[in-house]
C-alpha cells in the first residue's frame, strides 16, 4: 500500500525495476490516499506501508499493526497558483504569512480534504495561521475530497492556490497558467516513512519479501537509488533513512 503522490511522481516506475534486479522481488503498488492506505493495512491488505503522515504512522505501529517505522525519505511541498499571483504569495515571509495572504486577498484555495498526509499537513498550517476555513468552505475554501492530481486539476481550472508535493506538481501535465508561487520553506518538508505490516497479526503477510523490500529501501543502494531519481533534471526525493 502506498500513497498516491508517490505513484503520480513516477518514483515506483523508476525504483521497482532496480529493486527487482537487486533482490528479485516483484512489488505490486496499490496507490491510495494515506488515510485509506493505513486503514487497508490495518485490515492486513498489503505487506508494506509507505506513506507520509508521521503521527498516524506512529499510532499504527503503536497499535501493533506494523512491525516498526523508519524514516525513508522526504520531499517538500510547494504552493502553486495562477502566475498572476493575486494574493502575492511571492512576497510572503513564511508559509503562515502565505496562507494568511490567501485568505485576506479573498483568493480561492483548493484543499484535498481527504485526510491524506498532504491534507493533514495543510490543516496544521491553517491552524498555525489561525484561520477558520469552515466558514468559507464552498466559497473560497474548496475541499475537493480527491487525490492530489484531481485537486490540482480543480485548482488550476479555478485559478485557485493549492498545496501540493513538488513531485506530483512537476510531473503534472495539466498546468495551464499555474506555477509554483511559494516554495523552499523548511516547514514544508514532507517526511515519508516505511512500515512493514505486522506479520504476527496478519499471518498471510509475506514477511521475508516485506522485510527485504524495506531493508533494501533503507540500504545504501536503495537510498542512493531514491536520491538518484530525477525528473526534468530535479531530484524529487531526498533519502534520509536513519
Amino acid at each position, binding site marked *: 500500500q502506498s500513497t498516491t503522490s508517490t505513484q503520480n511522481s513516477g518514483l515506483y516506475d523508476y525504483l521497482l525495476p532496480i529493486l527487482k534486479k537487486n533482490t528479485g522481488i516483484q512489488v505490486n503498488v496499490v496507490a*491510495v*490516499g494515506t*488515510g*485509506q*492506505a*493505513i*486503514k*487497508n493495512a490495518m485490515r492486513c491488505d498489503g505487506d508494506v506501508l509507505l506513506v507520509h503522515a508521521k503521527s498516524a504512522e506512529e499510532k499504527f505501529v503503536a497499535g501493533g499493526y506494523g512491525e516498526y517505522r523508519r524514516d525513508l525519505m522526504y520531499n517538500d511541498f510547494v504552493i502553486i497558483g495562477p502566475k498572476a499571483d493575486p494574493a502575492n504569495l511571492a512576497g510572503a515571509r513564511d508559509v503562515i504569512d502565505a496562507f494568511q495572504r490567501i485568505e485576506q486577498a479573498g483568493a480561492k484555495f483548493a484543499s484535498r*480534504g*481527504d*485526510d*491524506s498526509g498532504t491534507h493533514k499537513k495543510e490543516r496544521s498550517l491553517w491552524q498555525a495561521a489561525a484561520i477558520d476555513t469552515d466558514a468559507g*468552505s*464552498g466559497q473560497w475554501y*474548496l*475541499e*475537493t*475530497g*480527491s*487525490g492530489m492530481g*484531481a485537486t490540482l*486539476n*480543480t485548482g488550476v*481550472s*479555478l*485559478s485557485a492556490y493549492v498545496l501540493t508535493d513538488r513531485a506530483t506538481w512537476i510531473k503534472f501535465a495539466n498546468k*495551464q497558467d499555474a506555477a509554483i508561487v511559494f516554495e523552499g520553506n523548511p516547514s514544508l518538508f514532507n517526511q515519508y516513512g516505511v512500515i512493514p505490516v505486522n506479520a504476527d497479526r496478519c499471518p498471510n503477510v509475506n514477511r521475508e519479501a516485506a522485510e527485504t523490500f524495506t531493508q533494501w529501501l533503507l540500504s545504501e543502494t536503495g537510498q542512493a537509488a531514491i536520491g538518484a531519481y530525477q525528473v526534468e533534471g530535479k531530484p524529487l526525493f531526498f533519502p534520509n533513512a536513519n
Partner: protein
Amino acid sequence: MDALAEAFRLIITLDADLFEILWLSIRVSLSALAISAVIGLPLGTYLAITKFPGRKFCILLLNTLMGMPPVVVGLMVYLLLSRSGPLGWLGLLYTPTAMIIAQAVLITPIIAALSNQVIENLHQEYSDTFYSMGVTGRRAVAAYLVDARYALTTCVLAGFGRAIAEVGAVIIVGGNIDHLTRVMTTAIALETSKGNLTLALGLGAVLLALSLLVNALVIGVREYAAKRQYA
C-alpha cells in the same frame, strides 16, 4: 451493521450536510434524466420505426455509447467547459449544471438504445396498421411512446440508475467540492479514500434507499395506471 447505524444516525439527527448532499444528488440526476428522456426516447423511437441508410449504424453507435466510460464523458465536458474551452465563458465548470450536462451526455445513449429495442418490438405489431393509416413522423413517434409507456419506464429507470450511481463524470466536472458540488457518490468515494469504509457503505445504503424510493414511486404509478386501464 454499524455502518447503517452511523448512516441512519446521520439521517435521524437530520444531519444538514447529509441532506444537502442527498438533495444535490437527486436534483442533478433527475434533471439529467429529464433531459436525456426528452432527447433519448424520441431518438430511440425514431430509429426504430424509420428506415434510412445508416440506421443500423446509428443503433450500433447508441449501443456502443452505452459503454461510454463516465471518466471520459467527464473529461470531454470538462474540456468543453474549462476556462480555455469553447464554452469556458459560461463559467459552468464545477457547478451542478456541469454535472447535469455530464450525466445527461452519459445516459442519453442508454435511454435511446433501450427504448429503441422496446419500440422495435411494438413496431413489428403496429407498422402495417400505421402505414395503412398514413401515420408517420412525429405522430407515429408520439403514438409509439404513448402505447409503449409501461415498458419504457424500465428504460428510463435504467438511465436513472446509471445517473444516480455514477461518480467518474461528476467528480471531474463537479470537483466534489464540499457544500457546492458534493453528491452522494463522490462523498462515498471520499470516505473510502479516507478509509472510513463502514461510513462509506452506510452512505451507499442511504443512496440505495433513495433510489428505491424513486423506483417505487415510478413503478407504483405505472402499476396503478395499468390497473385502472384494464380493470
